[in-house]
């Protein structure tokens, strides 16, 4: 069974073909990063127009790479939320049209479920239950994953997402977009213990995150740093980038480990764009190995937004007998608690 997965929830237009929920026949992503770079962020109206311009090409490319025709697909899975409404609409209406014309079912997928399940696109997969951290520009959430479709929220950010903090600090430092990549690259030349930025842990028991205090601390520090000759000769931009990254990574690692302990889960999974960060990968691996806990990260192309993870979620929803009506609408807010377990 071949599922076409489509994601247009933010600034990437993605399409992928997945066979029997395992074999990736193609995974095409058209990134708008170059287009948005001068703006230091995603411009929704531009994003929406770009999706419209790109979606046919991206789907055609995914079919060509897989060497199949549209008639060979058995179903379409498409992200309906959460995300930017204008962008989501392009993916949804395209999918509805194809589903209608070819007389195949389409599945309405929650983007976050796609991220959680993205680890199953890899050869080495965890067994249920596990703790999953989904961390990106728009999300920072910890889930207890008991099975397909069964996700309990353990904690989430109370203000900014970790990826958003990366983007905003990168902007303060005059670095490029996306901020995560820019900070990681620059941070390699800096020392992570040069500036001791705060690690916000709320209370000991809480599994929630807060990155706004860190953002304030970095902003205040940069002001002080720019105004002081001795400080700016002693501390480099790279040191600030590395120290900031360390503060974010420390909080993420600590939270994953305490969540795992709290629900007594045998494994941990990290997904989403920030999961590409090598410092996060290294530090979590280290912390988990000490406790003999296996940690799983998808490879970077499945961490950032992609159609394959949507196809995978769609495959499991389809096997569960689910398909969406043509009257389906997008949902800019789509809490994962609204999903039903897959039996």
């Amino acid at each position, binding site marked *: 069974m071949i599922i076409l997965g489509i994601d247009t929830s*933010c600034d990437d237009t993605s399409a992928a073909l997945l066979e029997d929920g395992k074999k990736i026949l193609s995974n095409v992503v058209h990134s708008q990063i170059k287009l948005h770079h001068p*703006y230091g962020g995603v*411009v929704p*109206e531009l994003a929406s127009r770009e999706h419209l311009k790109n979606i046919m090409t991206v789907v055609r490319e995914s079919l060509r790479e897989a060497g199949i025709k549209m008639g060979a697909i058995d179903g379409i899975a498409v992200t309906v939320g959460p995300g930017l409404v204008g962008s989501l609409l392009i993916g949804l209406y395209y999918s509805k049209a194809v589903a209608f014309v070819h007389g195949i079912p389409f599945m309405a997928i929650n983007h976050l479920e796609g991220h959680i399940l993205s680890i199953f696109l890899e050869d080495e997969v965890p067994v249920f239950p596990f703790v999953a951290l989904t961390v990106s520009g*728009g999300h920072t959430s910890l889930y207890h994953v008991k099975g397909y479709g069964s996700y309990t929220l353990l904690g989430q950010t109370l203000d900014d*997402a970790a990826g958003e903090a990366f983007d905003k600090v990168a902007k303060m430092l005059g670095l490029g977009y996306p901020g995560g990549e820019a900070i990681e690259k620059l941070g390699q030349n800096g020392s992570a213990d040069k500036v001791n930025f705060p690690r916000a842990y709320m209370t000991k028991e809480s599994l929630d995150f807060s990155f*706004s205090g860190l953002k304030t*601390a970095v902003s205040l520090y940069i002001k002080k740093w720019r105004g002081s000759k001795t400080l700016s000769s002693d501390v480099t931009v790279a040191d600030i980038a590395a120290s900031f990254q360390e503060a974010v990574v420390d909080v993420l690692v600590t939270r994953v480990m305490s969540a795992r302990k709290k629900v007594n889960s045998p494994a941990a999974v990290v997904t989403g764009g920030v999961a590409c960060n090598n410092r996060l990968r290294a530090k979590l691996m280290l912390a988990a190995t000490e406790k003999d806990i296996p940690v799983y990260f998808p490879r970077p192309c499945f961490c950032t937004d992609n159609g394959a993870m949507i196809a995978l979620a769609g495959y499991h929803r389809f096997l569960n007998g689910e398909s969406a009506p043509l009257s389906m609408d997008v949902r*800019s*807010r789509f809490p994962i608690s609204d999903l039903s377990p897959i039996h």
Partner: protein
Amino acid sequence: MKHESITYRTCSALETIDLGRELGMLLRKSDVVALMGEPGSGKTWFTKGLALGLGVPSDIVITSPSFSLVNEYKGRCALFHIDVYRLDGVSDFLSTGLEEYFHQDGVVVMEWADRWPEILPEWSIIVTISIIDDKTRNIILSGRHLNVVEIIKRMPESKIIGDF
């Protein structure tokens, strides 16, 4: 029209939330709160308070709308939490359709509105937050519209000297 303003000083995120709650309790649908202040000054925390004051259940987490542009909550009336941080100009604001929220049955809270003050309706309540130090914030509520003047008059007395 008379310009009315009141200045507060808060010494913790919780106090900022509390001040937001006081304002939230006085708001009615179609009110617009324009939040101004640098990153990390506490705009999202102030909004958490506003939401409480508007009757949004306390177990609903108010998070930054920087990524999603607008987050919607239900209280006594709807609360639209907008962030124009990612947008590049007034034309982006208009083409995204965010302006429509000013005319819907709800309270609009807009972050980074100071980038283009011309998009704000005249009945906006301007809330300017500035960082004094790590924990302390100066918070000024101001506006010219009759409705705003009324709201400011009904706010609790400021404990700091020098209301102006």
